[in-house]
């Protein structure tokens, strides 16, 4: 498969939202290990709001933009700002595009990774969702394929490697920062969310 139509993109983002909502307990438990345990319920609020705006008729760019705006409006906390930025920050990659193809998706992920890093003021290694987004973007770049399933598969793999890589990191930002060395051994909950989002994109493409 080389491309998704605009209505397929809307459906894919709906599946992404449902996947995040279905994982609320996984995210709560992950956040309780290093934070205060509100990541799951925050993400659920945001992606429930995204489901309300993801309606047929949206362009590819608007589908990503509106998802990001809904998340930013309704999630709150650091998660709302960074995951809202994740969907919005790279949406310009789809400007005037009728479809989502591998090259545009790679561009989206690269732009989003930069936007999230800038908004949070963090680079890789701080034990945040950036540690999943960056390797996902790199994996997509390295895949250099025009097959969407291969690209989404690479993105999820990069994110999952980022989740693993975040375990030995010492958190240097957010509420986990105060744990210092006690944060070692736990994956970052935001990184897990990134892997769920990209994994749901892969599952959608695989189902077509």
């Amino acid at each position, binding site marked *: 498969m080389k491309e998704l139509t605009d209505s397929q993109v809307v459906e894919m983002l709906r599946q992404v939202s449902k996947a995040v909502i279905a994982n609320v307990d996984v995210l709560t438990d992950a956040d309780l290990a290093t934070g205060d345990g*509100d990541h799951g319920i925050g993400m659920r609020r945001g992606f429930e709001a995204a489901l309300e705006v993801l309606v047929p008729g949206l362009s590819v760019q608007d589908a990503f933009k509106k998802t990001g705006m809904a998340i*930013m409006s309704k999630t709150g906390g650091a998660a709302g700002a960074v995951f809202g930025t994740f969907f919005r920050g790279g949406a310009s990659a789809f400007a005037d595009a009728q479809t989502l193809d591998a090259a545009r998706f790679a561009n989206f992920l690269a732009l989003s990774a930069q936007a999230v890093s800038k908004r949070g003021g963090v680079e890789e290694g701080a034990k945040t969702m950036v540690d999943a987004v960056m390797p996902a973007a790199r994996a997509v770049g390295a895949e250099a394929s025009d097959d969407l399933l291969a690209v989404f598969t690479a993105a999820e793999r990069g994110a999952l490697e980022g989740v693993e890589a975040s375990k030995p990191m010492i958190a240097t930002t957010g509420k986990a920062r105060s744990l210092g060395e006690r944060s070692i051994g736990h994956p970052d909950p935001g990184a897990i969310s990134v892997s769920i989002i990209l994994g749901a994109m892969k599952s959608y493409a695989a189902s077509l």
Partner: protein
Amino acid sequence: MAKVPKKILNDPRNVVTEMLDGLALANDGRVERLDGKDILIRTDLPDSKVTLLIGGGSGHEPIFHGFVGQNMGDAAACGQVFAAPSPDTIMDAAMAAHRGKGILFLYGNYAGDNMNFDIAAELLEEEEGIDVRTVRVNDDVAAAPPERADDRRGIAGDIYAIKVAGGAAEECDTLDEVERIARKAVGNLRSMGVAVAAGSIPETGKLTFELADDEIEIGMGAHGEAGIAKQKIASADDVADQIMEKILDDMPLGKGDEIALMINNLGATTMMEMLIVNRRVRQILADRGTIVHRTDVGTFLTVQEMAGFSITVMKLDDELKHYLDLPARSVGLSNM
């Protein structure tokens, strides 16, 4: 087996909105909730003034939304429990409270609050042309060493910062002046807390951290962020000594220095314990010849049913004293 904390609630997903309705009503008309949004705003806002906008995650009542009123915040943007408000909420609150002379954002220094308030500030400046300044409270000396003070969290020092900035925003004519005074207040604030037992988030029903029955954690943050070290439970005097040592290392106080002193209940600690701590703190300060201009012992910033307390010291000069002492009435700061 972890015990599920007991709370008397309706639907746990509606705690913030139901709490805000109740809070607005408890202000007897001085404050209202804005159009069903998670925003509280004064009903007696003058036509022209510098605006003080405060806010942050809910679940820490009475802060922040309990400190809206004359000589305090003009409006509060409220997030979900322990989560920063969204840029939309902050912008709506700012637009409703703006009275033509610019807006000071004053809130606790947390990654989530910083990002959401920054996004709102950028949009307000770009789209509305409103002058927005930001002052972040970073009073928790346990959170980072002095050379990384920008990494420190805001805890109960928020209340004194709001009180000073609120007074300044009432009396001063320019945003520059209000910002200057707010920065001075924040620079003179130091706090530290101790956790005795955890609180829980209503919607998850889970405790935010674990402490053994015979353990306390000195320096723990307002969301259960790790403190300096877990230790065996100790006496009130010993805990007060440990906290005051850190505070005084960070901001030396000597003979003739004047301060405001707050002993804040994190939720479930008895007034008796806090008064016993206050006694010890006053002994320490008296030994140094430090003058306590004002004492506030009470419940100002909580972490749900977390047990423990925090000690806050603000070094005063005549200007800070003036604004701190301006009269104010709200649910958070009764003057009965």
